[in-house]
């Protein structure tokens, strides 16, 4: 039996008043984007439900794509059969069998939109109920809070059945909250921060600093792979690669060791902010968490943050490492993040960075640097790539390997 349609229920969207239309439109676009490789699929967004007509495409695969999409509260795969009671009974038996485990109960819940149909609601409930009970002798019929509800809708064009209600990811459709630049290092925290920002509807673009030859091509690839994991929630992600070697070398040469890290971060933030301006973003998202490392004491954060007024969003700021890891595991970024490639935060890392840097001192040391020139040259060298959902080097490689082996 093939699903013919998937019905999507909005969550929080329904409370958003006048913006609702916009939210629904965005969600429809996101779903279309995520299902791009199923060309027959049609997406129709109504006021209270969104319908995905499958037209023969693979329902199970599409369900997997919908699970992580923000802005979906729940969804149900629907089977359409011809308008006959026999066909409906047969489909109901099969649907219940699929979900049934020893000791479960069920009921049939019919709505009859087509009043021409030969049986009325009660008759349909009874006849279909007994068909299921006959096919699965050990099942119980229960009207109040049954384990399985078979929803039946008799419409002009046929009978629609659904049993499962699958939990969606909740949140708001990605993109409804505007655009933010995610500072994506390759560690555990920044992908989680990106994910949480997406959950609240932000469209994110990933900014990654790399310093060849001090950082390896593998470290860059790892950041791209992480972006690929986040693209699952939005369809695609723009990955912005910023050359950072010259800046790091200059800092190493001209700045006292203790302030190297602080000024490093200030340069990164300046660059991210410039990129944000160019690309019309509204905020900067990062994976800082209070007190985790030297750059994340309040004093450090203040000294670094002093270079911009742009809103800084720090979704994991007050989370414990274990809480962050839990989410990283859930979104499948943890394994990637812990691969041991050096990123540009660890190279040249001074043995004793200042944990209480002062803004005035940082500014004073920056006078030894050609800040503007360095920023400009780095901006001139940025490279932007679109990374698609699930498109990791790993997945491409697996395909190649499968063809060889």
């Amino acid at each position, binding site marked *: 039996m093939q699903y013919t349609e998937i019905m999507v229920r909005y969550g929080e969207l329904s409370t958003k008043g006048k913006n609702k239309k916009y939210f629904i439109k965005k969600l429809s676009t996101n779903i279309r984007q995520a299902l791009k490789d199923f060309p027959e699929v049609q997406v129709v967004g109504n006021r209270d439900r969104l319908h995905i007509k499958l037209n023969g495409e693979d329902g199970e695969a599409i369900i997997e794509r919908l699970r992580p999409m923000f802005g979906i509260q729940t969804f149900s795969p629907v089977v359409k059969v011809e308008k006959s009671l026999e066909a409906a009974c047969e489909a109901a038996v099969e649907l219940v069998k699929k979900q049934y485990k020893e000791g479960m109960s069920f009921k049939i819940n019919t709505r009859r939109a087509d009043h021409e149909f030969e049986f009325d609601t009660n008759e349909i409930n009874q006849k279909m109920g007994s068909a299921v009970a006959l096919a699965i002798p050990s099942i119980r019929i229960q009207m109040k809070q049954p384990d399985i509800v078979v929803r039946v809708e008799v419409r002009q064009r046929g009978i629609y059945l659904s049993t499962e209600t699958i939990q969606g990811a909740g949140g708001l459709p990605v993109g409804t909250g505007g655009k933010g630049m995610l500072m994506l290092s390759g560690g555990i925290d920044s992908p989680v921060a990106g994910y949480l920002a997406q959950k609240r509807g932000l469209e994110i673009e990933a900014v990654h600093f790399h310093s060849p030859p001090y950082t390896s*091509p*593998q470290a860059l690839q790892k950041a791209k792979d992480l972006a690929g994991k986040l693209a699952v929630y939005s369809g695609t992600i723009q990955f912005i690669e910023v050359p950072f070697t010259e800046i790091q070398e200059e800092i190493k040469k001209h700045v006292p060791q203790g302030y190297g890290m602080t000024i490093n971060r200030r340069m990164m933030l300046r660059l991210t902010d410039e990129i944000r301006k160019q690309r019309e973003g509204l905020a900067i998202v990062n994976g800082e968490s209070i007190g985790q490392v030297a750059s994340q004491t309040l004093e450090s954060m203040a000294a670094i943050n002093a270079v911009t007024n742009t809103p800084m969003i720090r979704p994991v700021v007050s989370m414990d490492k274990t809480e962050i890891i839990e989410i990283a595991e859930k979104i499948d970024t943890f394994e990637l993040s812990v691969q041991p490639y050096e990123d540009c935060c660890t190279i040249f890392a001074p043995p004793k960075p200042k944990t209480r840097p002062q803004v005035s001192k940082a500014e004073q040391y920056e006078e030894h640097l050609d800040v503007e020139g360095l920023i400009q040259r780095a901006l001139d060298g940025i490279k932007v790539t679109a990374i698609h959902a699930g498109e990791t080097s790993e997945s491409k*490689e697996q395909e190649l*390997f499968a063809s*060889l*082996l």
Partner: protein
Amino acid sequence: MIYFDNSATTKISPSALETYQKVSEQFFGNPSSLHQLGEHSSRLLHQSRLQIAQLLGVTDEEIYFTSGGTEGDNWAIKGTALEKKPYGNHIITSSVEHPAVRESMEQLEQFGWEVTYLPVNEKGEVSADDVKKAVRPETVLVSIMAVNNEVGSIQPIEEIGEVLREYPSVHFHVDAVQAVGKVPLKLGKDSRIDMAVFSGHKFHAPRGTGFMYIKRGRRLAPLITGGGQESSQRSGTENVPAIAAMAKSFRMTMEPIQTNANKMMEIRSYLMNSLKEKKKVTVFSPEKGAPHIVCFGIKDIRGEVVVHALEDKGIYVSTTSACSSRSQVEASSLIAMNVPKQVAQTAVRVSLSPDNTLEEAEEFMTVFNNVYEQFTYIN
């Protein structure tokens, strides 16, 4: 041409050859190199190992790549001897093993090891009881092949495994070279087998490839030391293209194993029955043998003569093991099966692969009939 000498070697499969070529071109980096070319090769190597392990139902850390069956057998036997020297000096094996095993044993005997060569019955089979009787406190290794390479006898590996459960410290080595894709062999946690040896070119992979299964927790001294490849157990730069090609042929061999075995069994039964009808033909292979080997002889005609007579008509077979046929050693498995030397000398081996067809077998019989008539005429 009819190629009926698949136990000697097989023709490389077109898809394995394609993999070999592509990998040679695209993955030439040394898997140990730090750069991306190296890492790319290293990941392909890992994936190949994983695929082989999964097809066998074992873990990837239990698979070691080698150069083939001979190396595997040498490693299992001498590696055990080196590793277990402090615990004993006695080994049990059968009298119908491949020379890679037999010669290794003889070499160890020169160094003071004691080896028990178990007899076989008229079907060429070892008995598990004999294994039990032969075990001593100083026994450190039992080495028995899964399928005999000359006549195709299937050894009672599981029964021997059961016997050895009472002696958990004894290594149980199985030469599985002739079993691959023909006779199922249970490996992994629930099997008593500690080491199993495989050879690539017996299942349409390139020459010079092979792998060995070593059960997790079993220790074996390495024979080839050097750069620390294969978890320091078998050094030498990995032959990535050949290994990948082997992983591919192995998948193509293992996935349809039952259909393949049935197909070969059908051809084999046809050949066995047709040959048995000939008055002067003796069939040496047991009825319940491996599905791909038929060993037989024509009375008073040396095997070598039959091989050449058939070759003349474009049919390729062997006088038993190809490894010993050139050196004119009489079929040792047959001698061990108490076949008189005079008769053993007539032995000819037909060995099949899943590529062979029943039509080829029928054609073979037509040709064989002529050859047979000719020989009976002069006799």
